[in-house]
């Protein structure tokens, strides 16, 4: 059974990120001949020598013309063990927004470092965002080892420097891999040029890193998405609550509670098109039927009576601001979407802005602008049913929407009730 692993890559073109992705795709036979031919054509037209693998991910006209990456690109490859989804994010300073977007669903992040340049401000920023978004696994890929003569000393210097920085972050699993994307060292197979390195190749690490236990299987949370009432002869009285398990495990016979009503009931069955199931866990999409006829609608949360999310209209969160069109200030009113629940929210306070390079908290600021991250208090028009983001990504995250333009302007990670 092949599992799905989503990973994000961060780094600039100079770090060899495109070459690394190109190498992973090429060696897993996921680049096709017509794509190669089209990249070779374009490289020639642009007067570049050889075939520029970056052209595989830089798909838009403006990107090709200006030689930049402006957005998250998704790439796919598979090995017999896993299917991989890559969210490839540009590394420039102004693109924190893109990395946050790409990282939000990732199981793992690869931060690229040029072995000659060592840990740069940009590398620290990428690692910080990965930890803020709670990506469970972080890989520091020390690239271009061929240009430092595959020197173990240089690699260890970088590892030490990065480790001391990472100690300030909330990173649970940190792996260092010395490699050369250009030469293929330690990308797919272990390199003969670095016999001092005893770890896995990057691909082997991606195939084997244990992700099943990253999910929250403890706090049962089922945000109701859609109420199914067929009104057909065969299913005359059927009333099912369709949704996706956000966290935890549900079983028929479980005692449950529905928020906000607080009514209790028992799970009668968990249905799918392919038949009822004995257990439903994240991220399964299922339909829950209850033994009692109680009023349940979209936006409600099914949980266990002894383990409920926080229900509150006041919350504190780390917010990343995503637009240049406006900024976040106290008393700003916005739309908020959290699980399947939509409401309005007002900013009741901005506590500090975080300098994502130094992790310094600047408490003197009163606004957040594009690509800035800060600690914010919000009051919502209706209670939300949430958990701390660090405990549950699905029930701890929200987006903020500008009610005039309908644009998505903020991404929030809940710290708790305020």
């Amino acid at each position, binding site marked *: 059974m092949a599992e799905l692993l989503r990973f994000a890559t961060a780094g600039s073109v100079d770090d060899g990120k495109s070459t690394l992705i190109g190498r992973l795709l090429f060696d897993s036979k996921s680049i096709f001949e017509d794509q190669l031919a089209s990249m070779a054509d374009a490289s020639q037209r642009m007067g570049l020598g050889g075939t520029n693998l970056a052209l595989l991910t830089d798909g838009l006209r403006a990107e090709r013309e200006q030689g930049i990456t402006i957005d998250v690109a998704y*790439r796919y490859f598979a090995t017999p063990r896993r299917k991989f989804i890559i969210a490839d994010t540009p590394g420039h300073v102004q693109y924190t927004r893109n990395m946050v977007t790409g990282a939000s*669903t990732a199981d793992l992040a690869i931060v690229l470092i040029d072995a000659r340049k060592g840990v740069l401000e940009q590398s620290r920023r990428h690692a910080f965002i990965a930890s803020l978004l709670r990506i469970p696994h972080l890989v520091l890929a020390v690239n271009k080892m061929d240009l430092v003569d595959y020197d173990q000393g240089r690699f260890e210097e970088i590892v030490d420097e990065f480790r001391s920085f990472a100690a300030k972050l909330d990173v649970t699993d940190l792996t260092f891999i010395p490699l050369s994307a250009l030469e293929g060292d330690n990308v797919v197979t272990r390199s003969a040029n670095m016999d001092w390195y005893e770890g896995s190749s990057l691909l082997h690490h991606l195939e084997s890193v244990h992700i099943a236990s990253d999910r929250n299987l403890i706090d049962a949370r089922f945000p109701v998405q*859609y109420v199914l009432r067929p009104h057909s002869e065969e299913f005359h009285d059927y009333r099912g609550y369709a949704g996706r398990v956000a966290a935890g495990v549900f079983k028929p016979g479980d005692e449950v509670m529905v928020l906000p009503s607080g009514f209790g009931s028992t799970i009668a069955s968990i249905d799918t098109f392919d038949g009822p199931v004995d257990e439903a866990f994240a991220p*399964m*999409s299922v339909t829950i039927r209850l033994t009692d006829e109680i009023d349940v609608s979209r936006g409600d949360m099914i949980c266990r009576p002894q383990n409920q999310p926080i229900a509150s209209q006041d919350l504190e969160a780390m917010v990343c601001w995503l637009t240049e069109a406006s900024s976040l200030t106290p008393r700003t009113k916005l739309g908020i*979407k959290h699980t399947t629940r939509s409401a309005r929210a007002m900013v009741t306070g901005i506590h500090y802005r975080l300098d994502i390079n130094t992790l310094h908290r600047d408490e003197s600021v009163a606004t957040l602008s594009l690509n800035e991250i800060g600690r914010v208090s919000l009051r919502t028009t209706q209670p939300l049913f949430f958990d701390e983001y660090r405990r549950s990504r699905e029930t701890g995250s929200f987006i903020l929407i500008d009610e005039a333009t309908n*644009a998505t302007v903020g991404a929030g990670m809940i710290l708790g009730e305020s």
Partner: protein
Amino acid sequence: MNYELSHLRALEAESIHIIREVAAEFERPVLLFSGGKDSIVMLRLAEKAFWPARIPFPVMHVDTGHNFDEVYDYRDRRVAELGIRLVVASVQESIDGGRVTEQTGPRASRNQLQTVTLLDAIERHEFDAAFGGARRDEEKARAKERVYSFRDDFGQWDPKNQRPELWHLYNGRHRRGEHIRVFPLSNWTELDIWQYIAADGIEVPSIYFAHEREVFRRDGMWLAVTPFVTVLEGERPEVRTVRFRTVGDASCTGAVDSPAATVEQIIDEVAATRLTERGATRADDRASEAAMEDRKREGYF
């Protein structure tokens, strides 16, 4: 129980979540159905999303009039089985009504004309969300498109101004006249689609399997001899064993040499192929480096 899902079931769960979210938040969604394998899988996912209830939105076929008979038969049978409404948006009617001008010459194709027919139908029926079967692995412009792809009053896509899409929180807010294209299969690959068709025993039109057909060589592809294309001087029709990797307008969809007669054989073939499906079979994408991006900006699928 180890609480692990296979990649196909994880993709399925993600797609069902997206489809339900749209049904819950939009007033008038529609599912765009071409009869191709991707829209067939998407329709099956919609069926699963609402079972045991019916799919709560209609299906729309943008019909160039140049489709293979097997595809029409399949479409009509499936729609009847599901008991849902079929809306046909006809390119022929757009031509007759003077909305578009038919291309002329032996290489004429109605593929480009579909955009106008599609946008007119969305406007006429006041659809506010349209599900499409596009996948990000198909093409480089699609690789950067969101699951919810916002379209303005003119149906245009602005790739530089897309809404950030985080976690599984989709923002479908729009004004009247604007709409959202929704791509529930964004994260599926061609191989995933075939593996899913095999795993679920889904029927697909017969032209996906190897069969004998009169074809001729043009632009490095095998085009079928049909009433919709003119065979040029020097092009020699011959009967070959072929199958279609994509199903689209007969005038621009090429067949590939293939002995694959079962879904399992197709999976082996797709796993080993060295050409993308669009590169191998679609004349429309060969027009230029950014052909798909340009068409998408105008409102294409």
